[in-house]
Each structure stands twice: as C-alpha cells, then as structure tokens.
C-alpha cells in the first residue's frame, strides 16, 4: 500500500498554503524552499488541485495560489481521491475477476473502502493544520 508522490506533495502544498496564505497568494517557489520539494513538480500538482476545485491561481507579480474554499470546508478524503486517482482498494476491472478475487473484493476491499470513508468522513484540511490531532508512530 503506497500513497503516490503526487498525493504526498499535494497535501504538503495545501497545508503550506493554509499556514502561509494569510497575506494573499502563496508563490510555489516559496513553498518549494520551505518544504524542500521540487518547484516543477509542485506546479503539476498545483495545476491538478486547481482543476479539481481546491485551489485558485492568481497571475502576475505577487501571484501564486490560494485555497478556493475555507480549510474547514476542504475534506481530506476528497483531496486524496483526486490526487490518487481513487482512494479505493478495489480493482477497476471487475469483469475479468476470478471467483476468489470477487470474494476478496466484496468481503475485504469494498468493506475496507467503507471503513476508510467512515474514518475520514469529517476530517478537513483545517483539522490537519491544527497541531497533533492524531499521532501513531509509523
């Protein structure tokens, strides 16, 4: 089980924008420095987040990115679903599946998807930006 680089960078970008966007748009070059991430890669992720309706892009000098909605209204589940393509554990190609695959999908992956949706249901970007709401050693 792996979250893609896009998923990880995308969330770090959003958190950085919340924490540094108090005085207007946040330039990706400053995010890249603070987070020690590639600016080129951040541009791709920012474009995806803009198209997905999470960010607004402001052109010109002093330009950058702003959250489209308030952080309290942005659900982490929806962001991950966009960045990861899908947050589901189920295979897309259900037609070709064997009887064993079908049973595992129905009784494990589909129910795991529901559990993740339940756990993440109300978790917002604002919650994540608050310090230490949740910690497990990983």
């Amino acid at each position, binding site marked *: 089980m792996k979250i893609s680089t896009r998923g990880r960078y995308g969330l770090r970008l959003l958190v950085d924008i919340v924490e540094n966007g108090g005085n207007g748009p946040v330039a990706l070059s400053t995010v890249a420095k603070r987070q020690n991430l590639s600016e080129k890669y951040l541009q791709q992720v920012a474009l995806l987040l803009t198209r997905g309706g999470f960010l607004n892009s402001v052109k010109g000098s002093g330009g950058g990115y702003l959250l489209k909605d308030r952080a309290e209204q942005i659900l982490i589940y929806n962001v991950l679903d966009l960045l990861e393509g899908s947050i589901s*554990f189920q295979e897309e190609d259900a037609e070709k599946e064997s009887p064993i695959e079908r049973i595992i999908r129905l009784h494990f992956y589909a129910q795991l998807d529901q559990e993740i949706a339940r756990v993440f249901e109300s978790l917002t970007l604002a919650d994540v930006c608050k310090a230490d709401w949740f910690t497990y050693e*990983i």
Partner: protein
Amino acid sequence: MKLSTKGRYSLQTLVHLATCKENCSIRKISEATGISSGYLEQLMIPLRRAQLVVAERGVNGGYRLARSGITCHDVLVASEGDFHPAPCKECEKNGLCKTHQIWSLLQHTVIEFAKDVYIEDLASHLVESGTGGGI
C-alpha cells in the same frame, strides 16, 4: 491506492488454501487463481517464513495453511512487509510534518480493519457461492 500485486496475490493464495482439505500443489493453486506457478513459488517464500503456510514433500505433498485464525493482516505483513503508505521514516521533517498524521491514520485504519478479517471467513464465502476450489 492499491495493495501491491504481491499482497493481493498472497491473499488469493491463502483463501484458496483455506478451501482445500488436503495439501494443494502449486499447479492446482495456479489453476484456481490464475497466478503463474513461478510467481506462486516466490509468494510462498515469505508466507512460509511467517509460518502461515507449510510445505510438504512427497507424492501427496504441497502447501496447506499452517494454522487456523490467520487474518488478512497476517498475510499482508508477511507479503508487503511494513506497508507504510508514505516513506516518512526517511523524511527529515518526520515529527514536524502535519501530513504525516494523515498517513498514520490511514495506515492505522487499514491495519485495524485487516486484523478483523479472517482468511477462513473469506474462504467460507467462496464455498457458499459454490465456486470453492479444493473441496
């Protein structure tokens, strides 16, 4: 987000073995799951090491489950290793990064859920649906 091929195939292998009353050869597991024999041999190495399956040689040799009560979590730990959703351990910001909490919540959710799903229960659904392999 998906489990690795190794993890998914290992689950299928164990569910099939749970439907078998006797030792099951690699060839038979391959027929039931569609996984190639060569790949199955590789999957068995960590599963044997984790003492989830046992192999017997001889005419009626083959693989069987080592014990009852094996969970999906047991299988995934054996096949996928640590299954961290993000490589936070190598990250210099570990402990400071707020997104880290999302990945640990995700990991925790998957682990706790997988601990409650038993291979034998999955196998009994398979038998009920009339498509049980080895019985």
